[in-house]
Structure formats: C-alpha cells, structure tokens
C-alpha cells in the first residue's frame, strides 16, 4: 500500500498500541501489587489480633475468641486457625466449620504471606504469624513471655482486590481505546487536510493549459512540505511559458518573413495580369517572381535545417575539406549580386588549407556569411575571406559596421523589432542557422566590428574561443 495516509495511520497506531500497551501492563502490575500489599497488611493485622486472643494460663493455653463478623458471615467469609507448636489446633474461625487451613511456617517474627485456594474454593490470600505467648503471673500488666508460641493463619478471599483491579483495567482499556480512536481520527483528518492541498494542487496542475500556463499555482495556505513542490512546478511553468512565447514569436516571425515575399508575388502577378502586355514585360515580371520564389525557398530550407538541428536529427560526416575551393564554390551564387552592387571580392585563403569537418554544413555556414556580406556591405565596398591568427576563416567586409545594440543579437533567430530593422540589419534566419550549424561542428562563429569600420565574421574551433565574443 503506497498511501501516505494509510502508512502514517498504521505506523502511528502501531507505536501508540505499543506505548499504551506497555503503560497498561505497568499500571496493572503496580495497582495489583499495591492492592495485594494493602490486603496483606490487613491480613497481618488480623493475624496479630487473632494471635492476641491466645493466652498462656500456665497449665493450658486459652483462646478467648472475641466475635469478629468477618470470620462469621456466610457469604465470602474470612478464615483463621491457630496452632500450638506441638500441632494442636488451638482455635478455628466459625467460618471454617471444622475444616483446616494450611499451617504456615513463618521464619522469625515477621508474618509470611501466601496465595491459596480457600476451603470454599475461592482464590485467597493468607498471612501466617508465629508469635510468643505471654503469661501474666502477678496480675494484669506484668506479662512476660512464657516460652510457648502460637501460630496463626488468617485467610481472606481476593475478590475485592480482583474487582478493584478489574475496574482499573476497564478504565485503562477504555482510555487506551479512546486515545487510539482519537489519534487515528486526528491522523486521518490532518493527513487528509494536508493531502487535500496536494490534491488541489494536482487538480490545478491538471487544468493548466501548457500554452498559456498563467495564472500559476497559488503559493498561499499550503503545507510547508508542499511549498517547494509548488515552487518548482511554478518555475517549470515559467520555463514552459517562456518556451511557448519563444515558439509563438518564432512562428509569428516565420509568418512575417513569408508574408512579405508572398505579398510581392501577389502584387507582381496581379499587376502583370491587369492588362495585356508585351512578351518582354511578362518575361521580366516572371524573372522577378522567380527571384522572390528563390528567396522564399532559401528561407524555407534554412528554417527546415534549423528545425532539424534543433531536433538533433542531422548527422555530421567529417571529411577533409579544402577551404579555399569551398569558398570559391560558394561565392559563385553571390557573384551576380556583388557585381550589381559594385562589390570587390577576394579569397585570400591558402590553397593548402584543409579542415576535417562536415562539408555540407560548412558550405551552408560559408554561404550564409557570404550572402550576408554581399547583401549588407555598402555598394562599391569589398569582401575578403582569409584565415586569421585564431580563426579558421573569417569573412571581412568594408562596412558599414553593425550598430552596437544589434551586434549581440545578430545570431538570434529573426532579429526582430523595428529597432533592428531600422538600423538596416535584418538577419532573418541565416545567421541563426550559421551559429547552430557551427555548434554541431564544434565551431564557434562570432561577429565584430573592425577598427576600419567594417564587419568581421569569424569561424574558429569552439575551444579556441574565450568568452562569448559575439
């Protein structure tokens, strides 16, 4: 059974039963002994009194029985019997009706006590006393020991003791029972109350919409033991909320990135169809539409690559890659754009430079860096690819530089907000993909503004980077 309530109740009951049981036994014994001692004291007194009824007359020993009701009544009587040392029975209580009590053999003057079965079959207690007889030779007040002894046994039923003990036991049992029931109820109630808070929390957690987790779990009026759990759940919810918000922003950004070229396509098509045109006008329009579709395709491919990287589903296949050749190969796609914008390009990598890495991933990294440079370098500037003191390769350009407030965010997905775009840097998804791909290849990609006012994108082995230089 894995119920906290049952386990708590059972263990508390076990401890309580053990403790109360032990206590009851101790109390029972103490009370029993006290009652028996009391009875014994009474028996001893009675024995002494009975012994006092024997008188040595010199020639004979007389027993002057003074009527004692205890020894005469028909119901549950007490008994006594007195003997002389020679075994002669000196006296019997009327209740004995001729029967005998066992003759005690006390040592010394102290009374001896024993448990016995009374002549009428009741359980009983007996006190035995051997006492010297005294003789009065010269009248009353001049008694002296006569040298003879009388032995007295006094017996009485123990039913009163048992009745008293029974009453004590009943009270004990009642008290133990009430305590156990009360304790069990208290445990069940307090545990239930504590667990109700847990159930409430569970119900609240169950109702939470992961996409919109607010309001979080209330922290008030919770048992201390549950508070850390609720705190942790709230922290988790905050992380989930943040992650969903990021996801929503990302989706909004993707839709934004796709809406603009889509708007262009639609406008182009609608303008082209508005009237009958010359074939070359159609050709120009279709060519422009092709460019837009190409951009959308690149965006989609980058998004897909990024999503796969996020999912960890992209295998890395290292092989020796000749860097200079790879850069030349990648540049071909941007030659046209660069020519259009009057940009000069130089590949200063050593023809012998090779690196062992995944060729396709590195190609995407280099292509995106070159695309970025070809798009954002001011017209008439230059782009140079070279290897640096610490970098595997770097793409430098003549600027303009990246505004300081944008620089830390150029590798974010969709550098967003009007601020970013206002500053003329619109990174979309390409540089985010560059960074993610770099991470998969254990390469760090960083961006910095050069002293000459240009921008330098650097690719280096991840362990060669100190701090986050981006």
């Amino acid at each position, binding site marked *: 059974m894995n119920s906290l309530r049952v386990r708590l109740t059972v263990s508390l009951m076990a401890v309580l039963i053990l403790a109360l049981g032990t206590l009851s036994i101790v109390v029972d014994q103490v009370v029993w002994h006290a009652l028996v001692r009391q009875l014994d004291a009474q028996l001893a007194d009675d024995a002494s009194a009975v012994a006092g009824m024997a008188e040595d007359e010199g020639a004979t020993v007389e027993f002057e029985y003074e009527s004692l009701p205890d020894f005469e009544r028909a119901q549950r009587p007490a008994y006594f019997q007195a003997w002389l040392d020679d075994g002669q029975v000196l006296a019997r209580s009327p209740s004995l009706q001729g029967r005998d009590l066992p003759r005690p053999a006390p040592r010394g003057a102290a009374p001896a006590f024993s448990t016995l079965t009374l002549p009428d079959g009741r359980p009983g207690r007996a006190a035995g006393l051997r006492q010297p007889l005294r003789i009065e030779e010269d009248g009353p007040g001049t008694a002296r020991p006569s040298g003879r002894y009388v032995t007295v046994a006094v017996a009485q039923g123990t039913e009163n003791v048992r009745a008293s003990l029974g009453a004590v036991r009943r009270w004990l049992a009642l008290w133990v029972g009430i305590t156990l029931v009360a304790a069990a109820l208290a445990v069940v109630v307090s545990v239930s109350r504590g667990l109700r808070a847990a159930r409430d929390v569970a119900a609240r957690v169950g109702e939470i919409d992961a996409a919109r987790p607010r309001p979080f779990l209330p922290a008030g009026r919770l048992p201390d033991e549950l508070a850390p759990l609720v705190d942790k759940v709230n922290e988790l919810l905050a992380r989930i909320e943040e992650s969903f918000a990021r996801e929503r922003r990302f989706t*909004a950004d993707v*839709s*934004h*990135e796709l*809406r*603009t*070229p*889509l*708007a*262009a*396509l*639609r*406008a*182009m098509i*609608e*303008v082209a169809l*508005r*009237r009958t045109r010359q074939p070359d006008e159609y050709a120009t329009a279709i060519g*422009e539409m092709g*460019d*837009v579709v190409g951009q959308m395709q690149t965006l989609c491919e980058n998004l897909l690559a990024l999503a796969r990287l996020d999912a960890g589903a992209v295998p890395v296949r290292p092989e020796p890659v000749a860097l200079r050749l790879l850069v030349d190969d990648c540049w071909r796609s941007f030659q046209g754009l660069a020519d259009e914008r009057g940009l000069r390009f130089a590949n200063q990598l050593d023809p012998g430079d090779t690196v062992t890495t995944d060729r396709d991933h590195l190609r995407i990294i280099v292509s995106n860096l070159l695309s970025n440079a070809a798009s954002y370098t001011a017209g008439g500037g230059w782009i140079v690819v070279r290897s640096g003191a610490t970098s595997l390769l770097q793409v430098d350009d003549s600027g303009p530089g990246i505004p300081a407030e944008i620089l830390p965010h150029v590798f974010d997905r969709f550098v967003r907000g*009007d601020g970013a*775009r*206002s*500053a*003329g840097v*619109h990174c979309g998804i390409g540089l985010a993909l560059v960074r993610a791909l770099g991470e998969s290849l254990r390469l760090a990609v960083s961006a910095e503004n050069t002293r000459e006012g240009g921008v330098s994108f650097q690719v280096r082995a991840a362990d060669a980077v100190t701090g986050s230089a981006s």
Partner: protein
Amino acid sequence: MRVLLVEDYQPLARALAQGLREAGYAVDVTGDGRQGLALAHANGYDALVLDVMVPGVDGLAILRQVRAAGSSAGVVIITARDQVPDRIAGLDLGADDYLVKPFALDELLARLRAVIRRRYQSTTTVVALGDLVIDSAARVVRRAGKPVTLSAREFALLEYLALRRGQIVTRAEIWGHVYDFAAEPSSNVVDVYVGYLRRKLGDGEAGGHRLIRTHRGLGYSLEVEGTE
C-alpha cells in the same frame, strides 16, 4: 493623385509602384524611412502607403511625424504583422487604413480611393457635374451619357479637378498631385494635358458648357455654370 510608397522589399515596392502608376496615380517610391519622411514633409501627397518595418525610420514613426506636422494625407499602413495590437497602434497614430500582407492590389487601390475621397470630404466614388460623370472606382468618364476614353494621366488630372471642383487649382498643385518624380518637369506640360482633356471631353464645343475654366495667372477650375 500623388502617392508616396515607402516599402523596403524591392520586388514588392516595384510591383506596387507599377500597379499604382497604371491605376493613374503619381507615385514616389523609397525603401528608406528617413528618405520617406523627408519626401512626405516636402510634398503634399494625397496619400501615403507605409510599410511598418522599413530601415531608418519605421512606418509608424513616419506616420506620427507626418501627422504631427499637420498633414491630412490619407495613410494606408501595410504590414506583415497582423496582431491586433499592431493594428491598434497604427490606427491610433492616425492611419486611415491598415492592410496585412499579402493583400490584393485591387484592395489597396480601393482603400486608397477611399482615403483620398475622405481627404477631400467626398463620400462617393461617382462625381456628377452637369452632364459629366466621373466614376473613379470604375475609372470611367461619361459626357452626356457617352463614354470618354482618357489616358491614366488625363484621368488623374480630371479626377483631381473634380475632387476640388469649384475651386481654383494652381498649375503647381496640379503638378504636385498628378505627376511623380519620374515625369519630366516642364512649364507647360500641365497646360498641354488640360488641352488634351478639354478636347476629349468636347469641352467648350458648340452647345456645351465650358467645364474647365482657365483663370489667367492662377490656374484652372472645374465647375458647372450657374452652380458656383
């Protein structure tokens, strides 16, 4: 009607500019917010078409500054952001309309007509002056029930005169609202087009009213005799 288009995505800007020009608007295009703001301050545009996210100064900032300067130009915001707060921000700043990309060119044209009409306190797309009927939605002109075929620029000229009917419109105003920077400035190009327009409308011919009146040294006005 003269329109400023501020849109930084070149393929979209080119297509929209062509569509607007072919619909008879004089269009100035820029992809840079700062330049857009300067143009808006320098010229009395009838309407501005502003993309929200443009480099330099964003579309909403242009709108704010243009409105602060007291311009009553109709403003249509175009944006890829379709969240309600974005729309509210644009409309609160005094945009007349709001279009989410991608949109139909016809819708942009219809909204432009609406914001320009509003600017000239006109509630209908059809203007009737005597026997002259100008339908700027259908881009049809009729004189005495017969359709008149006009070029885009002639139509724009007539439309502008009609929106300000009864008022004297200067040559500079006509130049400012009917021609864009692509047109060669010329001292008498306005007079030449007014001449074309009069001829096509049969204006001043025997038996007809003279609708377009010349005010020497001032400009032109479009009015029906006896009504103004």
